């Protein structure tokens, strides 16, 4: 976290309130400025305040916003899916309107503004390098220093008469509310985890129910993360599949292309199938797989896959080169799915650093040992 903060102070622009200061206000709708960060068609006007002109943004998401979110879920341009940090308005806010704080990841910004339809409010967008609120809070970029800098830089004390900032609860790991109060005079009120609960939170007089304060990790939460995992990790199974393809040509006698196109192809496709299944199904079935450690959940899934494969292969002798090669997959598949599932800890909303370290101390040596044993069997199977 300290490292992230150092980096931030080294590269952050000296100005604090980008929509007002950095970008000419007469250009709503031009879309993109340098580095793909900028205003889009969602800027629908401007409002004049004591501290300058502030862009007014739409609270309705357009098809372009939805398309952008979909692409980001697949990892396309995800690290550059940003809006300019600074102050924005929705509706016609006054000095008494609430101030909502968000991150400059466009999906975070869109979540917030789409839930503010019909209200008049200010949106203070922090520079989190295009990272969502929770992850940025963990890194410290959604943090006390950045929040204080924006509040002062945007001259928020001249724009609103109250002294209240509504910060998403998941921003709390990066923010020290009492320090923000000391340094700016603004009181941080932690809003609900989900922007969808904002209306109820406001209606209840800034009170969140216990449910609003709890992070979930339901089926749809988990499935939404799978595409990015698939794309992000593809660099591992592709070379592995290529290796199985190429090495399948070895065997008694000379290197044989026939073996590559028969056994090799089956092996390479199996690697890709295990990667796909191992990335999707344990994520989907997480609560129902036995064990608490993700590596254990993944290993169970891999064992079931290997059993199904074994039953299928028993009816099709010749799919694998020999029994040894077939048996090797009983080791390699669970090792692989265990490793893939273990890496899903980073996507989850409830694993701790200490817990993952504990899990890895046991799981990694076991995964490595089993995988090496499987590779050994597979290699031995080439030559009998």
């Amino acid at each position, binding site marked *: 976290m300290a490292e992230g903060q150092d980096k931030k102070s080294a590269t952050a622009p000296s100005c604090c309130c980008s929509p007002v200061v950095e970008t000419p206000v007469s250009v709503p709708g031009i879309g993109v400025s340098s580095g793909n960060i900028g205003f889009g068609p969602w800027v629908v006007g401007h409002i004049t305040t004591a501290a300058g002109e502030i862009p007014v943004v739409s609270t309705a998401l357009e098809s372009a916003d939805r398309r952008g979110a979909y692409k980001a879920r697949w990892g396309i341009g995800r690290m550059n899916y940003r809006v300019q940090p600074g102050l924005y308005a929705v509706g016609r806010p006054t000095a008494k309107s609430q101030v909502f704080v968000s991150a400059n990841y466009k999906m975070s910004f869109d979540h917030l503004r789409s839930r503010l339809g019909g209200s008049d409010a200010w949106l203070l967008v922090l520079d989190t390098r295009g990272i969502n609120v929770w992850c940025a809070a963990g890194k410290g970029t959604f943090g006390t220093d950045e929040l204080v800098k924006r509040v002062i830089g945007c001259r928020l004390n001249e724009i609103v008469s109250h002294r209240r900032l509504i910060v998403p609860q*998941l921003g709390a*790991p990066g923010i*020290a509310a009492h320090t923000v109060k000391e340094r700016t005079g603004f009181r941080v009120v932690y809003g609900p985890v989900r922007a969808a609960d904002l209306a109820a939170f406001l209606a209840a007089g800034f009170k969140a129910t216990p449910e609003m304060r709890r992070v979930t990790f339901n089926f749809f939460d988990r499935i939404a993360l799978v595409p990015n995992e698939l794309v992000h990790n593809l660099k591992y199974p592709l070379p592995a599949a290529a290796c199985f393809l190429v090495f399948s040509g070895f065997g008694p006698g000379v290197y044989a292309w026939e073996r590559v196109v028969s056994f090799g192809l089956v092996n390479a496709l199996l690697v890709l199938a295990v990667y796909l299944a191992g990335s999707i199904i344990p994520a989907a079935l997480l609560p129902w797989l036995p064990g608490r450690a993700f590596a254990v959940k993944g290993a169970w899934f891999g064992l079931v896959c290997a059993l199904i494969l074994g039953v299928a292969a028993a009816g099709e002798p010749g799919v694998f080169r020999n029994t040894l090669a077939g048996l090797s997959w009983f080791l390699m598949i669970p090792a692989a799915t265990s490793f893939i599932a273990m890496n899903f800890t980073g996507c989850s909303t409830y694993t701790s650093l200490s817990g993952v370290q504990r899990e890895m101390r046991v799981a990694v040596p076991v995964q490595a040992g089993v995988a090496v044993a499987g590779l050994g069997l597979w290699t031995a199977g080439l030559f009998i």
Partner: protein
Amino acid sequence: MPQLKYLPNVSTLQLDRGKCNGCGICLQVCPHAVFVFEAKKAAITDRDACMECGACAGNCPQGALSVRAGVGCAYAIILARLRGTEPDCGCGDSQTCC
């Protein structure tokens, strides 16, 4: 649906009730309902639910809470081991990660 629970007895979360002034901000910021009020002060009711995000400790004005905050991410831990750094979410500013 079965409740998702992670490993027991691993969290580094500590609460010094002697320092607690009962402001209740830890109850507000905790995403896993680890805390409850007991005799007008915070108390830990479910330490095993703690994900060590650090929100409670960072927001406690009394310094009554401590936790080794970090990311529960195997990928970050592997990267940190390879680079000899502390595990954090920073896969690098330019790379694709969370």
